[in-house]
């Protein structure tokens, strides 16, 4: 929806591991924000100080204040929980449902495969944005529901990828042998196929993690984000844009945070993918 393309997969690059370390550091930091936001932000992210609205960054408010006089740094830090949870949930929905479908199709073949793949085609044929907007309207507004909507759209991508991985692994001799020696379908699937197909699926998941944050942000821009006063990164970017003429930092700082997280997720995804080859 916002551009990240899951089928693009990964590019093996010979960057110094410094980049990867940095990426893990960024992810670690925002995870810490999500778990113990109080350690990093000492101001209230929800209650503003009336009359102190739209202040420029200062010592007291390192990232300034928003239109209601709330500390922007606190909102960004507390926003980590909602955003990461949302992205995690979105990816989980896609991962669990998509991979199940893909495994089933790839392993069973025949009529099951055809049916599942037509279903996937159908999901891809409906414009993804329309699909996720409809799902949100159906489920009601809220960060959890938005995450489900975003995840729902990625089911098709996970299904396609895991199916092709399963087909690849199935052709491997030891799997053929396992099936040939009378192994039960599910057992072989679980013991041999899944672990081998999983690396690239996980790489896709890491990549999807970044694009889920962006997709949630796009939903906020179109007016389908979490209800106020929830601080959520995508929503912060989307809401801050109205103040661009007067307080540009309101949209730019959460933007930079999202950029850093998405880039890190991408870098980690690449390292996961690279381990396979």
């Amino acid at each position, binding site marked *: 929806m916002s551009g990240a393309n899951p089928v693009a997969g990964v590019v093996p690059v010979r960057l110094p591991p410094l980049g990867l370390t940095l990426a893990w550091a960024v992810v670690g930091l925002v995870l810490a924000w999500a778990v113990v936001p109080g350690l990093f932000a000492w101001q209230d992210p929800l209650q503003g100080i*009336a009359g102190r*609205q739209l202040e420029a960054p200062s010592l007291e408010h390192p990232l300034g204040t928003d*239109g*209601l*006089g709330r500390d922007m740094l606190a909102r960004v830090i507390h926003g980590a929980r909602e955003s990461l949870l949302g992205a995690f949930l979105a990816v989980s929905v896609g991962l669990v449902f998509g991979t199940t479908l893909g495994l089933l199709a790839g392993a069973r073949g025949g009529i099951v495969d055809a049916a599942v793949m037509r279903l996937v085609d159908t999901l891809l044929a409906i414009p993804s944005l329309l699909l996720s907007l409809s799902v949100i*309207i159906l489920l009601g*507004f809220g960060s959890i529901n938005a995450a489900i909507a975003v995840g729902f759209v990625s089911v098709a991508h996970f299904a396609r990828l895991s199916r092709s991985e399963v087909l690849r692994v199935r052709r491997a001799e030891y799997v053929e042998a396992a099936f040939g020696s009378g192994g039960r379908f599910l057992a072989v699937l679980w013991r041999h196929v899944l672990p081998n197909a999983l690396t690239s699926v996980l790489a896709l998941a890491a990549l999807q993690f970044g694009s889920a944050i962006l997709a949630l942000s796009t939903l906020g821009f179109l007016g389908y984000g979490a*209800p106020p006063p929830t601080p959520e990164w995508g929503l912060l970017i989307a809401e801050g*844009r*109205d103040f661009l003429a007067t307080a540009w930092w309101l949209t730019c700082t959460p933007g930079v945070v999202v950029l850093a997280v998405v880039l890190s997720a991408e870098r980690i995804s690449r390292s996961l993918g690279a381990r396979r080859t």
Partner: protein
Amino acid sequence: MSTTRRNLLAAPAILSVLGAMCARDAFAQAAPVRGGTLIYLEQQTYTNLYPPAGGFYPNGGVLNQITDKLTYQNPQTLEIEPWIAESWTVSADATEYVFRIRPGVTFSDGTPLNAEAVARNFDTFGLGNRELRHPVSEVITNYLRSEVIDPLTVRFHFRAPSPGFLQGTSVIGSGLVSLRTLALPFDQLGDATKIIGSGPFVVARQVLGRELVLNARQDYAWGPKQHPHQGRALLDTIRIIVSGEDSVRIGALLSGQAHVIRQIQAYDEGRVQSRGFQIFAPSTRGVNNSVVFRPDNPLVADIRVRQALRYATNAQEIVDTLFSPNYPRATSIIASTAQGHVNLADRLTYDPRQAVRLLEEAGWTLGPQGVRQKDGRELVLTAYESPPQPRNKDTLQLVAQQWARVGVRLNVLAGDAGSRVVDSLDPAKTPVAPAMVGRADPDVIRSQYHPLTRNALLQTGGVSQRVQSFNDARLNGLLDAIASEPDRAKRLALVGDVQRYVLDQAYVIPIFEEPQVFAAAPRLRGFGFEAVGRPSFYGAWLAAR
């Protein structure tokens, strides 16, 4: 009285205009320039141009350029002046109105604007048209029938006194259109090219949802009699372009790509003025931007709870945090510029201690989560934000913060249009709602609260099927009396009664008086407004750079 207040409010805007003019001293005095194309940026696209649908600002902004009205309400004095009607008489009991039509007026399709056309227009607005699905105009009450006396004289008959009708002929919802337009079904009137009026501009072309181009009508010679400008409009062309992004509209204005923009946020006003641009903030003179209760919901059925929440609401803090001096704090349920306004600021004080006392008295005690409880129920209320109102989401968030201090939770929802419409009609789902409406006649109060019209409080007998039992006969009696009291002084007294009654019952928490805020390039002159803030480009012109 109302005009002085308005002028005081407009002072900063006028000063900035003066400043801009002084800088160009000699040139500013030059005669108006004719010709040129004006670019006007709208926030939203028009939805339907059936004249009574002109209450929606984007619709009104178009209709005000392409249609004329029977009478003209002077935006300064609020007096009703001749326009398409040269003169009129009203019977003592306000059940009969006779209008004498100005000769020689034509619609842009060449058909005459005569008594017959006026009669057909008001028959439609007053009675609706079931077959073509034209709804009844909310500004016309008790309409019975029309009677064409001669080609230029028309008489209207009413079932009961209808004192608001004269002003009703001047409002945006009473624009006169050609019989060809009236013959079209309602749902085809979203197409601007089908709206044939007699106004100073005509629709040249449209790109639905994106742009509307209006050209000046060369033979236009029937502007309001007392309007400073006469004859055809000065501009050749107006391009009304939809641009939903706040930052894009402001940027376009400041970089010279647009001349006028609607809906500029309070926080951008200073930046616009500091660069020599003009701010216009005409009052909408109607019901203030408020939070209304739906007493049908048991949570807010107790008057003490409503009063407590009124005491817990700090309107001054909201105005100071979110708005500018163009948004004065409310002193009643209607604007101080509205007719019949009574200053009731002493009943709108902020007093959280009083709020807590009332809540305790009503049996709501603080629960473990900081939210008050009674019989195992938490005092949690819900409201949908109303996107067309300025910074409504932020306003409701501040209200929620203030209520949280006395232990009441307000959830602010940003729903999709479908859920919002359905839930807003259900007092069980939305015990609280934001509301406002603009119109320069005391009838506006009736429009807002009567169950048969906007039904802001959700009483029984309205459109909503979900209301169990709430109905305030006393309030409705007062509202009906306003709509049919022919004596002006008595009518205004009734308006005062309603204001006191609604506040005593704490049905409504008024917050601020809502203006329509426009920003314009320094070179735009003669830009005007009708009485409740719809732009008028009739006398507007662009000075040389």
